[in-house]
């Protein structure tokens, strides 16, 4: 348990029982968390959960593979709108529409991710980043202007809550908490296995040194495409969770500003590992709330704190400095 090893006595560091105890406590904490809180706090935690998925998805591209990409909000939006539109237009009034829309979201964001990945092969770092910026603007502008399909700036409303048959409806923040965090945990487990396995390691090799990676027969093109598609799909899943949670989608949820927010969460928290983006997300979510008493000057102080963190610790809170 590298994270807290430094704080523990020798005999606890290796103990398996100890690990299970910690995991158990964590599990209990996570399971009981929503109860003592009020609805507003639950909402914040739910949104934090969605953004955890988004930060992790962005980190797959930036932290694992070294591909700087500034359009997670675009895939997030595509996932959300796909799900919403499917539920409202294609299969209205049916409870399994929501669950059916998940594979649809995966396929759709995957394809879009593939299209975005293609320029990555030709454009170096910075230029690819700018191209993704453009892609993000394109998606936003399309969502905002294709009124017949997406409702444009008026948004897409009335997205039904998820349901399992007719007896279980996800209609309050507590139930959504479990739904959202179920996926957060599943995705974390998935990413953990991916990271330790050959695919994830190949991506990290590409990040470190493309030439060297190609000499050990890692297919650079394939790695980059795979990483970007994975990143896109995960962002889309976050959108899929978001759509029925807020019930009303508006293009303003998927602007460049959102992408920059997600990017900041990843960089401030530390990229390239699983916990960094999670910490970054939680920090950036709870900081404005903690600063709420100062109301007006909130964002100024928020910006200053971000500046200070990044100046003092450019690799992010849980990141590693390369050299």
């Amino acid at each position: 348990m590298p994270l807290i090893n430094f704080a523990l006595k020798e005999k606890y560091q290796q103990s398996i029982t100890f690990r299970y105890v910690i995991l158990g406590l964590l599990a209990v904490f996570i399971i009981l968390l929503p109860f003592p809180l009020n609805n507003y706090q639950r909402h914040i935690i739910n949104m934090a959960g969605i953004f955890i998925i988004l930060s992790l998805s962005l980190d797959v591209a930036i932290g694992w593979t070294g591909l700087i990409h500034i359009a997670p909000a675009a895939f997030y939006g595509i996932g959300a709108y796909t799900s919403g539109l499917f539920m409202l237009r294609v299969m209205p009034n049916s409870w399994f529409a929501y669950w059916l829309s998940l594979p649809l979201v995966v396929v759709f964001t995957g394809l879009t991710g593939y299209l975005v990945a293609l320029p990555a092969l030709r454009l170096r770092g910075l230029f690819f980043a700018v191209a993704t910026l453009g892609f993000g603007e394109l998606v936003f502008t399309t969502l905002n202007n294709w009124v017949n399909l997406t409702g444009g700036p008026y948004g897409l409303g009335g997205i039904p809550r998820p349901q399992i048959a007719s007896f279980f409806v996800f209609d309050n923040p507590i139930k959504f908490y479990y739904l959202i965090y179920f996926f957060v945990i599943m995705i974390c487990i998935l990413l953990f296995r991916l990271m330790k396995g050959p695919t994830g390691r190949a991506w990290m090799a590409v990040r470190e040194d493309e030439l060297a990676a190609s000499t050990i027969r890692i297919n650079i093109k394939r790695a980059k495409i795979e990483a970007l598609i994975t990143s896109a799909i995960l962002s889309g899943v976050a959108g899929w969770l978001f759509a029925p949670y807020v019930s009303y989608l508006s293009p303003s949820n998927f602007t460049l500003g959102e992408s920059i927010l997600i990017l900041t969460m990843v960089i401030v928290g530390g990229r390239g590992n699983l916990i960094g983006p999670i910490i970054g997300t939680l920090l950036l979510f709870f900081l404005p709330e903690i600063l709420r008493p100062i109301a007006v000057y909130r964002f100024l102080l928020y910006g200053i704190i971000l500046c200070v963190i990044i100046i003092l610790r450019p690799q992010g809170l849980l990141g590693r400095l390369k050299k």
Partner: protein
Amino acid sequence: MLLQQIANGLTIGSVYGLVAIGYTLIFGVLRLINFAHGEVYMFGAFIAFTSISILNRSFIFAILAVIFGTALLGYLMDKVVYRPMRGSPRISLLVGSLALSLVLRNIAMFSWGSRTFPFPPVFPLTSFRIGDLRITYLQIGILVASFLLASIFHLFIYKTKLGKAVRAVSLNYKMASVLGINPNRIIVLIFAFGGALGGIAGVIVSSFYGSLSFDMGTAVGLRAFVACILGGIGSIYGAMLGGIIIGIAETMAIAYIAPSYKDVIAFIVLVLVLFFKPTGLFGKKELMI
């Protein structure tokens, strides 16, 4: 009609170009994209506005205040944020510049307020016609001023000893310091000059449109950034050319294609250019033409 749109595009494009020069200078020397540059542009407009409307000074005073103020702002940005981060990973610098732009925007918002202010009419709005084309003297003034400033810069970089030092630092930081150039001083100079250029651009635009607000920097900053990539990052002429291309493309798109997609046009043009020239029109890694 067409010529009119081109003229309008040229005007706004040359302003994008001025701001883009600021981006490209800083990138050329530090490999850093200073997203807070758009806010320097905005501060320039506000300093002029404060001088003229609030302090009731002359236009000359305002311009001097802008040059001094934005140069100072550039210097402070370097000293407080970028110098401590020298050597950090590029993406952290990116996030740092984004955080800095957030801070600057908020400072402006608290200092002046969040509404849109009218910029005092300092220039006569008279125009003349050539056939169907109507050109205001202000537009001519803008074009002349932009090209003049860009040329002054070019002369500075290529014909003066200090300019040579700038080029040296942009080519190889360490070697330049071995040869007796103080890179930190050069960098301060770059930030100050780039800042002043951006500030003047801000004054130009707000006097052209007659209004200014604390969030005017973001849209222009983004366009100018795209322009500078388009022209080949590190190239001054490329930045100006990129700005003009984007200005014209945008005006034409608004007039003839689809006004609602105007934000995306800059990127579409960029992607098209990058497709054929992956590093931009005059793209090289150093600060050269």
